[in-house]
Structure formats: structure tokens, C-alpha cells
């Protein structure tokens, strides 16, 4: 079943087309990887899907529901979670409070929200840091915080923007494992990644963008062999 259908989504900033007639679908329970050079429009695409930025035209359906033009909070309440490339933790609040704020979307009772938040914090392996302020956490830990916070809203679809970006090499494998673990819970994931090896390892499908346009969509193997993708992004990537 298709969890997300995007049709001819476009957005311009002045004369620059950040997203130009982007179309793709995502199967429930799968991982879609999005690749593309800097400025390809990957994060803008997330902004348009989540209502963070209003699209100029196009259609976005979450399951059967048209979510085009809805506000971010309404889209979130339907079950679309998101993390940011430029991290946005609530810095003056503890890790536990950060996740509880997300948990309140589905659970109004404070004790239950707290229990749920602790469970998720344990899931992302940060339980010992639960009382630390978000501003005290390392970049890798803040990435996990954002994942935990997004998970707390019980998303059916989770959009993750460069989870492994800006973290040290040692931390990356554990974050990749976390994404795989998350997929096993049944959450559908769309992830933007610059690390092509990670994308090829975890994705069921890959969407390649360049200069705001969709240049390829298919399985990781198909993308690796796609000449347009190789020319514009992968370069000398070993397609074998």
C-alpha cells in the first residue's frame, strides 16, 4: 500500500526552482533514500511534504488523505514525523522533556507520556542522558534526540534529514543500526543522506534529485547503474 504519493510538487524561490515537478510514491513499511548534491532540493522537498513551506503547486497524499496545504501541526497529527538537517532540539529542556513534548501529541496523561518517552529514549540508547539538557548533548546524541522526539508522536511515516551528517565516523554505524531497528517497528522512512554507501545499504528505493528535478527513481541497484545519476552525482562511484 502506498503511504505517500507526491505528484508534480513544485516550489520556486524567486527565479530559482527549488523543487520542479517532483513525483514519487513510497510503499508502507519501506525506506526511501533521497540523494542529490547540495542545493538539489532535498530538504525543501521535506519542507513541502511536512507543510513547513507552502508548495506552489502539486499534490501530496498521505494514505488517501490530501495533505497539500495543511499546517505542519495538522500533518504531524496525522502521523508524519520529521527530523531536521540543522538540528532543532529544545535546548533549554532536558532530553526527557524534549521527548515528552512529542509524546503529548498522543498521550495527555503526564505519567504515561513520561513512561512512553523513557521507553523511546531507551530505544535510541540514551537512557543515561535523560536528565541532561539538550544543549549539553553531543551532535550524535542530539541526532538521536531528534529521532526519539519524532518517534514519540508515533509516526507512520518518518522523514529523516541527514541523520549521519556532521557526526564522527565512529557514531555513524550505530545511527544506521538505529534506522534499521526503527524500520523493524513498522515505521515507513524517507531519509536524506549524503553517504551513498548508507543509502544503498538501507534503502528499498532511491530517489535522486538534481537542481530541483527528479532525475531517477528505483531500487538501489538501478540507481547505481543509472547513467544520469552517475554523471550528475555519483561520479566515479563504483557501480559494481
Amino acid at each position, binding site marked *: 500500500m502506498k503511504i505517500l504519493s507526491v505528484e508534480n510538487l513544485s516550489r520556486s524561490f524567486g527565479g530559482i526552482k527549488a523543487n520542479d515537478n517532483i513525483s514519487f510514491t513510497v510503499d508502507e513499511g519501506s525506506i526511501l533514500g533521497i540523494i542529490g548534491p547540495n542545493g538539489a532540493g532535498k530538504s525543501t522537498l521535506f519542507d513541502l511534504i511536512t507543510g513547513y513551506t507552502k508548495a506552489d503547486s502539486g499534490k501530496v497524499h498521505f494514505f488517501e488523505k490530501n495533505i497539500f496545504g495543511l499546517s505542519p*501541526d495538522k500533518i*504531524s497529527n496525522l502521523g508524519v514525523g520529521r527530523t531536521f538537517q540543522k538540528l532543532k532540539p529544545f535546548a533549554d529542556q532536558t532530553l526527557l522533556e524534549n521527548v515528552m*513534548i512529542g509524546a503529548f501529541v498522543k498521550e*495527555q496523561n503526564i505519567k504515561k507520556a513520561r513512561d512512553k518517552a523513557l521507553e523511546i529514549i531507551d530505544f535510541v540508547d540514551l537512557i543515561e542522558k535523560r536528565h541532561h539538557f539538550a544543549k549539553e548533548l553531543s551532535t550524535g546524541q542530539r541526532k538521536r534526540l531528534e529521532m526519539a522526539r519524532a518517534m514519540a508522536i508515533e509516526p507512520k511515516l518518518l522523514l529523516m534529514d541527514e541523520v549521519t551528517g556532521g557526526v564522527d565516523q565512529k557514531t555513524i554505524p550505530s545511527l544506521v543500526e538505529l534506522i534499521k531497528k526503527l524500520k523493524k517497528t513498522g515505521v515507513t522512512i524517507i531519509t536524506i543522506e549524503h553517504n551513498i554507501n548508507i543509502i544503498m545499504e538501507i534503502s528499498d528505493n532511491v530517489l535522486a534529485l538534481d537542481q530541483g528535478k527528479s532525475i531517477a527513481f528505483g531500487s538501489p541497484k538501478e540507481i547505481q547503474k543509472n547513467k544520469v545519476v552517475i554523471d550528475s552525482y555519483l561520479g566515479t562511484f563504483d557501480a559494481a
Partner: protein
Amino acid sequence: MTSEIILQAIVTGLMMGLIYALIAAGLSLIFGLMEIVNFAHGEHLMLSMFSSFWLWSLFGLDPIFSIPITILLMAFCGIITHYFLIRYILKAKMLIQICATFGLSIFIRSIAQLLWTPDFRNVDKPLLEGRLEIGSLFIGQPQLIASLVCLMAFIGLYLFVTKTETGLALQATAQDRHAAEILGIPSNKMFAIGWAIGLGCVGVAGGMMANYFFIFTDVGINFALFAFVAVALGGFGSIIGCLYAGIIIGLVESLGGLLIDPSFKLLYVFVIYLLVVIYKPQGLFGRY
């Protein structure tokens, strides 16, 4: 000068400081949430005092009993202010925001003068009157109760903001409204709640002060100035900072007036403000 007089000034300063703190907390909450300075805060205080006055004058309700009504009226006023003015200027430039709330202050004061004239009024024979004598200390009963009610309201506000679901959502919106929206928190609703709570605080302070203060259309101006100083001193957006700052201002006003010269007591407060702006612009607990 005896130690009794100094102690008297300290007690008076503390009581006034708690009232300043609650007024400033309302201002700080609104600023912390949407980074808009409510220059009509003093006029909102004036409205809350008139609310108490008219409830007493027209319906015979003593201010101590009309406090819940005044709080609700002011909270409603906050919601109206948000939906009819503030939400249209949220993304506007700071100068426009300043003009909007400053314009609102002139509008409210002018309407009040038109409706109620600039005459001074007071609640005659309120339930809270007289004074307590503790040793050599004289404490006005209305002032004491007003400051204690303000302290309780302040504690309630602090617990609400730090311990409840809505409070955490308010804090989240204050820190990053876009990140909060992605978590399903409607920022527009949070802003309206912020205004309701902010003016509700003013409702408590104004309602209690109606017991012993003259009520007139310009009454809020000095209180608003002190609230701005308290917010700057405590740190923009910091509620707990307002408590410390309110008390400091109350004490400086009271002790400065006693120890140096009463005619300059406003000056001492504003000297503090200038020192804060120069040496610690983020205030005692501020994050801006």
C-alpha cells in the same frame, strides 16, 4: 535612622516587588513565546483595575471576590488581542510590531479616557483594609494579601509552565515554534494561550491592587515601565528571572527612597536598568 525603619522599607519593597514580578512575568511570557514586546501591558493593567472597580461599583462585588472574573476577562482580552492584532504582525518587522502594540496602548488608554474620563477612582471600604502591627512593623493588610496572592499566582504560573503538558508545549513553542509545529503543537493556539496567561497575570495583580490603589486611566504607565525593567533585569523570556528582578526593583525603590532621597526613587530603578543593558544585556537568567 533606626533598623526598624530600614526593616519597614525592606518589607514594603518586598511586597511591591512581588506585584512587579507578576506583572513582569506576564510580559516576559508573551515576549518569550513570540518575541513581541507588549507595550500595552500597562494599559492592560489599567483595564484589570477598572474591571475590579466596575464589578464593585455596579454589582457590589468586592475586589477580593471579583478576582476570578477579572482574570477571565483579562485572559479573554489576551485572546482577542492575539486573534485581532498580534497574529497579523507575527512575521512583520520589529518596528511594525512595536508600533502595533504601542498603538494598542494609546488606543486602549484613549478609549478608557473617553468612557470613564481621566478621574481618579477608588474602591470604597473594601473588605481588605487596615494594617497589621508586628512589633514595630506596620504592614498594610491589602498590600500584604495582594503580594501573597501575587506570589501564589507566580508559583502557580511557574508550576504550570514547567510541569504541565500545555506548559511544556508553551516552552517548546517559545524555543522553536517550527520544531514544535512538527511535533503537532499548533503555534497559533499556543500564542493565544500565552496572551491569555500573560494578561491573566496582569488581571491578578491589577485586581488585587484595586483594593488600595487609585484607579485612573494612566495608572498602568509606571507599572509597565517597572515591568520592562524587571524583564530586562531578569532576562527576556525568563519567568523565574522576573521574580528575582521584581523583588530587586521593589527593594531598590523602597530602600533608595528611604536612604537617599524619595524624589529620586524612580531614578535608582532606571539606573539598574541601564547597568543591566550595558554590562549584562541578557539579564540574570535570559537566553536572548
